[in-house]
């Protein structure tokens, strides 16, 4: 049983790699069927494959738990509702007497198991990556949200890359601290360097989004 749990991240990474490779190959195969593979087609295929890698991080619990579509954040790898009746509030930072920063300090508090980072808060509803039933949105839908400058604080491709490279709460996902029981929180499926590299490839390709099914 224990060995099974240890293998789970490895299996997930393997499946992710297979999926990403599959997407890239199928896109490329589709293009090749139409004729010669142009440099632009290759870039698009690589960009779409890179986006799927980015998507795998954005929908991991460390990121998506604060990108809800409802009135509260989530917590834990099972993405359950945040305890203590915490709610979003008008500015995504809780309400008076129950602000996010009333527990979440500027850094992780490993001795008490409370995660922390600068200006801890929920992502705005415009940047929700889940539906109202707490299911992650599709790759195409998240991509549309992330690239819609009317919803993403007017970030273009280079700004998105910069955000992924250095925004404090983005970086927190790779330094999430310890749970109250002392164990380490799980990390996103890619390293931060891999995440940035995938974002760069996607941005260089013009931030393409997959077609909605």
């Amino acid at each position: 049983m224990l060995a099974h749990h240890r293998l789970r991240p490895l299996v997930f990474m393997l499946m992710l790699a297979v999926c990403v490779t599959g997407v890239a190959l199928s896109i490329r195969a589709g293009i090749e069927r139409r004729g010669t593979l142009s440099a632009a087609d290759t870039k698009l295929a690589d960009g779409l494959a890179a986006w799927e890698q980015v998507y795998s991080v954005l929908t991991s619990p460390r990121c998506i738990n604060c990108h809800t579509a409802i009135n509260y954040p989530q917590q834990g790898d099972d993405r359950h509702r945040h305890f203590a009746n915490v709610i979003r509030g008008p500015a995504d930072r809780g309400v008076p007497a129950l602000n996010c920063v009333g527990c979440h300090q500027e850094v992780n508090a490993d001795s008490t198991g409370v995660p922390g980072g600068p200006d801890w808060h929920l992502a705005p509803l415009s940047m929700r990556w889940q539906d109202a039933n707490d299911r992650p949105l599709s790759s195409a839908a998240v991509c549309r949200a992330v690239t819609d400058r009317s919803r993403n604080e007017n970030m273009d491709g280079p700004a998105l890359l910069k955000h992924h490279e250095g925004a404090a709460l983005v970086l927190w996902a790779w330094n999430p601290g310890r749970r109250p029981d002392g164990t380490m929180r799980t990390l996103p499926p890619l390293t931060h360097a891999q995440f940035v590299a995938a974002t760069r490839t996607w941005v260089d390709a013009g931030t393409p989004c997959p077609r909605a099914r």
Partner: protein
Amino acid sequence: MATYQLNVNGQSKQVNVDPSTPLLWVLREELKMTGTKYGCGISACGACTVHLGGIATRSCVVPVSLIGDRKITTIEGVGQDPVGRVVQNAWVEKDVVQCGYCQSGQIMSAVALLKETPKPTDENIEESMGGNLCRCATYVRIREAIKRAAEQI
């Protein structure tokens, strides 16, 4: 162990404690200020609420090493504040308390609410006080006292 200089209720206090010690235990064990209560120890009940830099904060989960120079206000000092005094008087007037164990935290949260929202609606009160539990279920009187305080602010 490390030495920290804390500003508690306007007074400078020096403590020598393990950096990981939650503020709650610094207050109760080191400074002998036992008005702030231990309820759950995981920030779920609100009994340990104090104000840290003016923000209602669960002192049971904030290590002393992360406090810095932010001012700490506890139930022992909140009556020095005009809003705090009005809230405490309203609590007495409405006879809110039953067993009383959670009431320090309730009052600290109520003061934080009224400082930011002087005329709270029922919804404001429910949302902001939703993290403070009372096993005696004095919630109706808590709401009445907050509304009474709001009339006087």
